[in-house]
């Protein structure tokens, strides 16, 4: 796409930067942390070997304690976010994990000591303080590793979905130049007054072009369909640009039933008109000629260059077409560009049968 039409937007906050550290202060993450904490509390209470009597009060005590630990960890990681964020994912991940284990160990020790001083006997006998601290830390180590990993993967997955939909939209925009759409509409509006039949045909051509552009996928079509599409496109452009656009097409020799990637030719012609004819006051000739080669075909598209042309033209749609030719034909298909001083030539060679 031309830079004019693809307005570059500033990145939307942090969302566009993939982050390895979950936002522990955000409500959904906090909620996930609390759910996991409660599950841990349940597991601890229900584990076999524990006393079955009075399990409900025990669940209450354990829940309060585990929730408190979990929130403490979340708050610590949240407030250290700025320091952790710049780190590499791997080392940052490890550091966050170590921090949460240390926080748990420390908190467990403090709670144990408080419990013993106050004599509430909520935790464990004095003799096994270290067992209590170690056990808690070990549980935290396991749960924290799993949870950090889970949240990281979740974030990555969201990021991927975001990127995929963005790419799809951009591809759609690249296929349909907004300028072309609105100028064509304007052409039709103008024709309706004076030449209704011509207007009708233009609407049909535009519809065909859009059907092809919106429906194009990685499937194969036939060369005949592609040539028809080029003809429809050029018909609209000739109305729009008037005498400035002259067209020379010589493709009678080409086999119309050859399999080619969909929407392979039209973008090449569109490029030729857009970069070669439109910027020239007196326009010029876009030519497309095709011939059979032993074992394949060759199509050559030529357009004049405007005076003062920028040295290289935007290669997005060319790169796209080239990639698709490569996908379908491997190394036997090629798209070659010959940017001469006055004439710009695109040369496409395709074998008779695609590999995919």
């Amino acid at each position, binding site marked *: 796409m031309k830079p*004019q039409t693809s307005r570059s937007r500033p990145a939307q906050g942090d969302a566009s930067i993939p982050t390895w550290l979950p936002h522990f202060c955000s409500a959904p993450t906090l909620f996930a942390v609390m759910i996991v904490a409660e599950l841990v509390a349940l597991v601890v209470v229900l584990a076999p070997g524990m006393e079955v009597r009075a399990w409900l009060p025990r669940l209450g005590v354990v829940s309060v304690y585990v929730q408190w630990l979990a929130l403490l960890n979340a708050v610590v990681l949240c407030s250290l976010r700025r320091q952790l964020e710049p780190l590499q994912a791997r080392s940052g991940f490890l550091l966050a994990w170590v921090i949460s284990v240390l926080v748990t160990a420390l908190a467990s020790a403090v709670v144990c000591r408080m419990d013993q001083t106050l004599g509430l006997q909520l935790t464990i006998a004095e003799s096994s303080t270290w067992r209590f601290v170690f056990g808690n830390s070990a549980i935290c180590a396991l749960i924290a590793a799993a949870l950090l990993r889970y949240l990281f993967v979740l974030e990555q997955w969201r990021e991927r979905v975001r990127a995929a939909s963005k790419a799809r939209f951009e591809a759609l925009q690249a296929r349909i130049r907004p*300028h072309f759409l*609105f100028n064509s509409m*304007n052409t039709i509006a103008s024709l309706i007054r004076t030449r209704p039949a011509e207007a009708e045909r233009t609407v049909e051509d535009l519809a065909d072009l859009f059907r092809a552009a919106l429906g194009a996928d990685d499937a194969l079509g036939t060369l005949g369909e592609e040539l028809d599409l080029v003809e429809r496109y050029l018909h609209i452009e000739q*109305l729009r640009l*008037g*005498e400035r656009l002259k067209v020379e097409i010589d493709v009678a020799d080409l086999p119309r039933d050859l399999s080619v990637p969909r929407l392979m030719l039209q973008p090449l012609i569109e490029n030729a008109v857009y970069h070669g004819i439109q910027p020239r*006051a007196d326009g010029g000739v876009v030519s497309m000629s095709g011939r059979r080669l032993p074992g394949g075909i060759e199509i050559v598209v030529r357009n004049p260059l405007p005076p003062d042309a920028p040295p290289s033209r935007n290669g997005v749609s060319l790169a796209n077409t080239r990639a698709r030719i490569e996908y379908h034909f491997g190394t036997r298909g090629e798209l070659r560009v010959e940017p001469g001083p006055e004439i710009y030539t695109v040369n496409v060679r395709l074998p008779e049968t695609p590999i995919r």
Partner: protein
Amino acid sequence: MNVLIVDDEPLARERLAAMLAEIDDVTVVGEAGNGRDALDALARLRPDVVLLDIRMPVMDGLEAARHLGTLERPPAMIFCTAYEDHALAAFEANAVDYLVKPVRSERLRSALAKARRWTGEHARGVQSALEPGRKRTHLCARVRGSLVLVPVAEIDYLLAEDKYVVVHHAKGEVLIEEPLKALEDEFEGRFVRIHRNCLVALTKLAGLTRAPDGRLLANVEGVTAELEVSRRNLPVLRKLVRTL
């Protein structure tokens, strides 16, 4: 009210002309296919309003507007565009109006109504609203109330004299009221400074020669005038000439 239609697409011009014909006391005095032709026709047609397409070959609507803004009594400018251009945002405050294509008849009428209340002050604002990074394709001189355009590609050299800059080009010379430094900045890479008062087009620079009196002169293709190279600009110039 006299209107000039400027658009590179014949059918787009045709449609606007047909719509304008339906509006009372509006006369289409002419049509042009690009900004440059529009400016050339201006002196002859004296329009009150110019309907300007943005994307056109040779000279686009934004640049044409900029040149129009230098006139003593600029016409009212109404931009037409197929698709919102971000460059247009800067102009919104200063153009009479801007219309999106296909233009609606009501919108055209209301834009023309606004144009009646238009003063030249706004037009001059258009000039300053242009993005600083944009390079013009033409320089524009005012000669007896009309505009003379010189394609930047045809300029041989620019010579500062008092508060003017003399633009020497393939077909003669014109005076413009712009500082040489501003021109040097705008067209960076196209001109090279050989002296405090002189910029030479890089593509026209042919070499350096020493005059009998010891002064160093720049040879510029098709130019017989002696252009002296100052000592200060010599090192850069030497390097450039070596790569010619």
